[in-house]
């Protein structure tokens, strides 16, 4: 072990953001994870195993679809959809869960802890645990359990122990607190964090596992369309689908990158999850990044129609991309996401996750002002079946249960 160095630039920093702000009890566990991931990263056999699983289990590569009718209706840029909704379990979350599941197996860990907001990461983790024969405990805020009931049932069918979290705002943030408390108590368990958040190495590792999205999409654009997109759009909760999409395009200066946060139902603290317009740098749950908070540094409440975007902080690499100006971050509100959801359903035959609908809303806003020979690539990060009860509620439709 090297001596504690408090000043040198360390891996795990994205400009000033990132780091590893965890209690001492967890420092050795985080260090063991960092070392195990560094070793796996250098091991071609690890990536080969993951690649095989992606081909034979996840269903990768996922399709790239031209949203021809939507593009025509909007009368501007051509819109392409990277179809992560077609990945097994219905969202990009499986990419990370499989990667970390293999890492946990490699570390000899038998018990997996996870948190979930919308339930997609919980479902992906429960799925991977079933596949690999690992014990699975998922923490979920009780408010999220209520609005994502189908995913709670799916996780239980997959053998996971889903534990409701009643503290704080009873959403994703509180589920992460509770998962970290479990990890502090059981440092031999593996904490399978679901987004590009938390202490180093998670933001880097989760991004690496999600980068398959952007690498595939970039290659598909070149092969199927013949050129790179002019604009890439992804929704940003913690930001794992967005960073996974953006990373392959970071060096392509002609490609604009745009992350879409949850505008919720208003601009006051507590009514949205737009960290870049409404937050400022601080530390939440192990990482230094943009955080929604009050003047005293108490973490703000958030609101979004989509549980997966309903979080007070954003992944630290997005914070760095924002400050560098390499990516722009905007917000789409609940109403725009709902309209985009319905429009994509009717024009393309795809129900997007409410999270992904925020990215679609931004494309709907921007495409008309672009030329027909320009193109927009949207990361359609998940499918919307999980959201039909929420949508029905918003539309005033009663479903017969």
């Amino acid at each position, binding site marked *: *072990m090297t001596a504690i160095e*408090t000043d040198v630039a360390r891996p795990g920093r994205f400009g000033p953001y990132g780091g590893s*702000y965890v*209690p*001492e009890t967890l*420092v050795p566990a985080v260090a063991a994870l960092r070392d195990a991931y560094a070793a796996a990263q250098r091991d071609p056999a690890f990536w080969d195993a993951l690649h095989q699983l992606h081909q034979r289990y996840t269903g990768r590569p996922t399709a790239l679809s031209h949203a021809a009718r939507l593009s025509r209706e909007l009368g501007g840029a051509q819109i392409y959809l990277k179809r992560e909704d077609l990945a097994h379990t219905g969202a990009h979350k499986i990419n990370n869960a499989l990667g970390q599941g293999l890492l946990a197996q490699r570390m000899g860990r038998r018990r997996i802890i996870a948190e979930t907001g919308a339930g997609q990461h919980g479902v992906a983790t429960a799925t991977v645990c079933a596949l690999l024969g690992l014990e699975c405990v998922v923490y979920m805020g009780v408010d999220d359990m209520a609005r994502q009931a189908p995913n709670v049932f799916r996780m239980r069918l997959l053998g996971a122990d889903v534990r409701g979290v009643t503290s704080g705002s009873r959403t994703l943030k509180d589920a992460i607190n509770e998962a970290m408390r479990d990890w502090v108590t059981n440092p031999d368990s593996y904490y399978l964090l679901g987004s590009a958040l938390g202490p180093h190495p998670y933001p880097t590792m989760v991004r690496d596992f999600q980068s398959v999205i952007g690498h595939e999409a970039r290659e598909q654009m070149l092969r199927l369309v013949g050129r790179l997109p002019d604009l890439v759009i992804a929704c940003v909760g913690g930001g794992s689908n967005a960073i996974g999409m953006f990373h392959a395009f970071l060096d392509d200066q002609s490609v604009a990158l745009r992350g879409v946060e949850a505008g919720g139902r208003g601009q006051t603290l507590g009514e949205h999850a737009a960290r870049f317009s409404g937050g400022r740098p*601080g530390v939440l749950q192990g990482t230094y990044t943009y955080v929604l*908070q009050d003047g*005293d540094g108490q*973490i703000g409440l958030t609101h979004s129609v989509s549980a997966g975007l309903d979080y007070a902080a954003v992944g630290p690499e997005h914070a760095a991309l924002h400050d560098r100006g390499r990516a722009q971050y905007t917000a789409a509100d609940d109403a725009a996401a709902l309209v985009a959801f319905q429009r994509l359903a009717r024009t393309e035959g795809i129900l997007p996750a409410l999270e992904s609908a925020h990215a679609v809303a931004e494309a709907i806003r921007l495409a008309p002002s672009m030329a027909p020979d320009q193109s927009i690539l949207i990361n359609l990060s998940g499918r919307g079946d999980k959201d039909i009860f929420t949508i029905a509620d918003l539309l005033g439709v009663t479903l017969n249960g």
Partner: protein
Amino acid sequence: MGRIADTFARLRAEGRAALMPYLMSGYPTRGALLDLVPALEAAGADLFEIGIPFSDPLADGATIQRAAERALANGQRLPDTIAEIARLRAAGVRAPLVLMGYVNPFLQYGIDRLLADVAAAGIDGLIIPDLPPEEAGEIQRACAAHGLDLIMFVAPTTPDERISEIAALASGFIYCVSLTGVTGARRSLWSGLPEFLGRVRARSSVPLVVGFGISTAGHVAEVARHADGAIVASALISAIDQSPDDAVAAAVAFVRGLAPGTAVV
């Protein structure tokens, strides 16, 4: 020497370990510290850990979480706590007072301003559970410049070599986490505690104070055999919780009951 070092030197001469109650500022009511601290000092408390409520206390169990939620609901803010401590000093409280808070409220207050205000109020040190030494460099240097101790943690999971490195950075005392877990009252202490404290003792020269799960005079006595002090937090908060109408009397009775455990036999 500062108040913390003085206090441990005096206690060593008296053959006692330190009893260090944790009080959540703003709990059970705003300004409760003003009555609780002098009363507990008279009841046998040697140092105090003063908690700053935070919305997301991820190292804490349910008891301290609830106390923090209540303190925030009571409207307790960091400047209030600092002002209350200044009043306690003006009223003659002599025990060392150490602020315990998560890093984000401190960062938002501004580290330079915080340390200046904290030192001026008569606070002796800071405990920041989500600031491991790797992230603490700047704050630690600033603390030293203001004559404040930044208290370091060691845990049962900390390897020996890292204990040595942390001990080399430590000032005031080392906070030894008594178990692998979050804060909260426990029925019994971890059986590996003496061995763990022995490993820390062999590698450090500053006093060792044990916290997490210490709930009874028996626990305090057990800790006093192997360390220089015991922090009692969740069990004290629970005692206050059970007598909301007379928090001071409940806290005094509880601390009086613990004090005999501090004798080093």
